[in-house]
């Protein structure tokens, strides 16, 4: 599995190198893989670059936590009641397709061009999938499981905490897996469009305007992609730890 994956990555790099070296694409649009990777190696120890990456990660984290704080309790509430479930699902389906990046001009007016605006974009983009997956997980709790827990003499609150929440965790984690990489993408997009002064997005924008800066841009994108990969790996580890029972059960 891992070897196949490595083979795929190496193959892609090779094709990239060949395409660039033989000028199949204009050189100023695609630098060769080798020089991009060499530039990336310089960047990962460059404090200015790292500061910008840190600003993006921080804004993404703040926005993401905001989305979690809203989505998890609200999802629990809406998923527990059949009536609220029906009422809310239509509203959420209507709100969900609104592109958060499209709201950037509005958010810039309200929240400026810094952390608050970026975090708001991330939160707006991540809250819907998180909310929908939480509601779904809560609502899909086995009715016999709930009846069993009630027959223990537990209050509704105890049933919610001890049975409904644990059984919703796999679905919640699916929502987390869908949204964590989106959080970074949204943040970088918000930095581009919102004209932020710090962050990976604004750094990329500045580099793209420098002569020969395309190499740095490609290197920055490669690094951002690797970050996404790392975060995904962390979420997979969480799923293995807390939701293995859900996958094994179907086996």
């Amino acid at each position, binding site marked *: 599995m891992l070897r196949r994956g490595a083979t795929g990555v190496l193959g892609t790099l090779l094709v990239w190198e060949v395409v660039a070296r033989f000028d199949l694409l204009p050189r100023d649009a695609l630098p060769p893989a080798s020089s991009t990777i060499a530039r990336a190696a310089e960047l990962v120890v460059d404090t200015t670059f790292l500061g910008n990456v840190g600003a993006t990660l921080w804004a993404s984290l703040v926005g993401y936590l905001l989305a979690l704080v809203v989505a998890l309790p609200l999802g629990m509430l809406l998923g527990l009641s059949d009536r609220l479930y029906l009422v809310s699902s239509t509203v959420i389906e209507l709100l969900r397709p609104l592109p958060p990046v499209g709201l950037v001009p509005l958010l810039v007016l309200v929240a400026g061009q810094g952390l608050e605006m970026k975090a708001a974009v991330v939160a707006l983009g991540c809250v819907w999938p998180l909310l929908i997956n939480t509601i779904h997980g809560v609502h899909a709790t*086995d*009715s*016999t*499981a709930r*009846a*069993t827990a*009630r*027959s*223990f*003499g537990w209050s509704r609150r*105890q049933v919610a905490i*001890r*049975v409904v929440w*644990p*059984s919703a*965790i796999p679905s919640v984690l699916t929502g987390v897996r869908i949204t964590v990489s989106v959080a970074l993408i949204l943040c970088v997009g918000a930095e581009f469009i919102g004209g932020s002064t710090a962050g990976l997005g604004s750094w990329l924008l500045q580099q793209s305007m420098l002569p020969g800066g395309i190499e740095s841009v490609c290197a920055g994108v490669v690094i951002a992609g690797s970050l996404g990969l790392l975060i995904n790996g962390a979420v997979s580890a969480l799923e293995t730890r807390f939701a293995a*029972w*859900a996958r*094994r*059960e179907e086996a």
Partner: protein
Amino acid sequence: MSPALLEVTDLRHSYQTRQGEHTVLDGLTFSVERGEFVSIVGPSGCGKTTLLRSLSGLLRPSGGTVALGGTVIDGVPQGLAMVFQDYRGSLFPWRRVGENVEFPLLGSVPKSERRRRTEESLEAVGLAAAADRYPWQLSGGMQQRVAIARALAMRPELLLMDEPFASVDAQTRSDLEDLLLRVREQFDMTILFVTHDVDESVYLSTRVLSLSKAPTVQTADVTVPLAFPRDQITTREEGAFVTTRSEVARLIRQAGPGGLAA
């Protein structure tokens, strides 16, 4: 005279549908004494599940009362445990077998006592070695034994069972029936057992109640004249088994909605 363990008086339940009011239970009255094994049999759709849900406090009946140990219940009463037909849904897949058994005791029983009861209950159903496995790693019959062990760990005054053996194969079913009779003896339990299987009700019980189709009333109360311990082969050969079985089956066949056919 001390009150019966379970006293059901004029229990009624109906709910609204688009076709109007639908009456499920139409005035059920019966009682269960301590130490009895009472089975309730009836045709499908006779409101057995509604009855059990009312008894366990999961559903508030439209009328009538349920008293446990002389106290009229309002909500889920203490001293009652329930085993469901759907063992898969009833066991919590994120908790190991032992953790499932001790789950209902969380917050009400000290840890050392929880551990003691868990071990004892799993021992009683022959699953002491499976405590650290997950329920979904076990066969259906074993999962239902875990559910029984969990009910035992609750030390209920009354054990309610809702068609508990309806989803397992015939051999497993016989094994579970005998296991249930054994633990009943060991833990000195009173059991109310709902089933659609006349044979099973006669084999297990000291008394069989039969119900009519909805709107449901009680149509018979038959005492089973068979001694314990029972045996899957010899008990079923006894004349008393055969006549009791026929009697109950006949009563069920005659039982239309609202009672025995004239």
